[in-house]
């Protein structure tokens, strides 16, 4: 047995040294390689999970902000529309007012002008009547060749006549 082992190169001290060697190597590798690497892997896994969570959260926030933005925009648009409508209405109203005021003013001016003209016509007519009456009397005097005795009577008479004339002439 010992002969065979010797020929195979197996010897107690070498075997023992290899066992010890392996155990030491295992302890060292565990200390220097496995633990640091496994810890690192674990840490990285945690970090990735964390950052995934962060990403989800921030994307949620972004969606929220987007919704908020759309809401504000919508509101602003509605307000703008309202303001525009309001201002259009106001403008319309003011224009209406201005127009109606202008209308009234124009009417007033026209009325006054008419009244003035009428008054003037009245005056002129009265003047004209007077003159016509005077003329008529004068003409009649001259025609008759004499002066009428009762001048006041005459005048009244003519006036009456003229009034009659103008009344039917109108």
């Amino acid at each position: 047995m010992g002969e065979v082992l010797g020929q195979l190169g197996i010897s107690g001290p070498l075997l023992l040294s290899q066992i010890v060697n392996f155990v030491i190597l295992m302890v060292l590798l565990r200390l220097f390689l496995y633990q640091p690497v496994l810890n690192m892997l674990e840490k990285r896994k945690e970090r990735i999970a964390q950052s995934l969570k962060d990403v989800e959260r921030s994307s949620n926030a972004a969606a929220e902000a987007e919704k908020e933005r759309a809401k504000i925009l919508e509101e602003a648009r509605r307000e703008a529309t309202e303001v525009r409508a309001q201002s259009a209405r106001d403008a319309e109203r003011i224009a209406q007012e201005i127009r109606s005021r202008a209308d009234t003013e124009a009417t007033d001016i026209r009325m006054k002008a008419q009244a003035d003209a009428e008054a003037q016509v009245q005056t002129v007519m009265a003047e004209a009547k007077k003159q016509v009456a005077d003329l008529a009397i004068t003409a009649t005097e001259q025609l008759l060749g004499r002066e009428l005795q009762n001048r006041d009577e005459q005048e009244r008479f003519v006036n009456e006549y003229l009034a009659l004339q103008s009344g039917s002439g109108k």
Partner: protein
Amino acid sequence: MTKLVGFFTNLVQNPRRRNITLGVIVLLVGSIILKPLMSSPHVSLAAEPLLEHGPAWFTNALLTTLIVDIILIVLALMTRASLKEGVPSGLANVMEMVIEALYTLLENVAGKNAKRFFPIAMTIFFFVIVSNYSGLIPGVGSIGIYHGAEKEEGGHSLVIEEKVAAADETAAFSLFAAEEEGHAKFVPLLRAPSADLNVTFALALITMIMVQYYGISALGGKYFKKFFNFGGKGFMGAIFGVVGILELISEIAKIISFAFRLFGNIFAGEVLLAVMAFLVAFLLPMPFYGLELFVGFIQAFVFMMLAVVFFSTAMVGHDDHH
């Protein structure tokens, strides 16, 4: 036929193929020229002591084991130095990948015990794969020392007889030409640790001892029921007793199979490569190198996987199956 002719004319006419053809021919002719100058392959079943008058325990395999240890520890320290929180890069990235892949594998095989088995399984894998590949480095097993004739009778190694004659042939080309007169013995400086039975037996013993340890720690005294089962009555009792003996034998058989599987594969691979290189110095060993790279990985992986499987089966009680 015309196809064959076309193939050969193409070999000559196509400039790239011509160069390759020429290179192959030169290498083959070189192999033939070198043939008489070569010593026959050095084959020794046992690791040999390096120093002629030094201690017998200081073998080339032990030296290589220490170098493998240093390589692994330096690698571990470099990895630890380049570990960083952010995006992994360089060596740390590779080691993280390897460790994570094997850890995941272990979790699949061993489940919740993966963390417990991890250091030993991982160390087996790293140590065995680096040991296996160390034998494939040119110079390992071929660079060495010639020992004088007086050591020859020591009988520490099983040197094939032609070795002595071959050493004579190389006399003119050896630095130790003066010693060649009296049958000098060639001792390689380095030898793959996996090609030394001490190493493989050490690994096998550690593995099987740990199997027993894990079994006892998981099942307590019930673990021994596997080997010494006197629970049955009559005929069944006898059966259980025999089965227990078989179990006991199988535990020892596992040690031997572990040790010789690794040793046999790696040692045979080295002999194969040496013989191929001896027959045709160039080109012929190339495919076998590829094969040995594959074998080196597979053996490391198989050793680790078997160890883990034995660990996990030891932790499951026999009663659980029924």
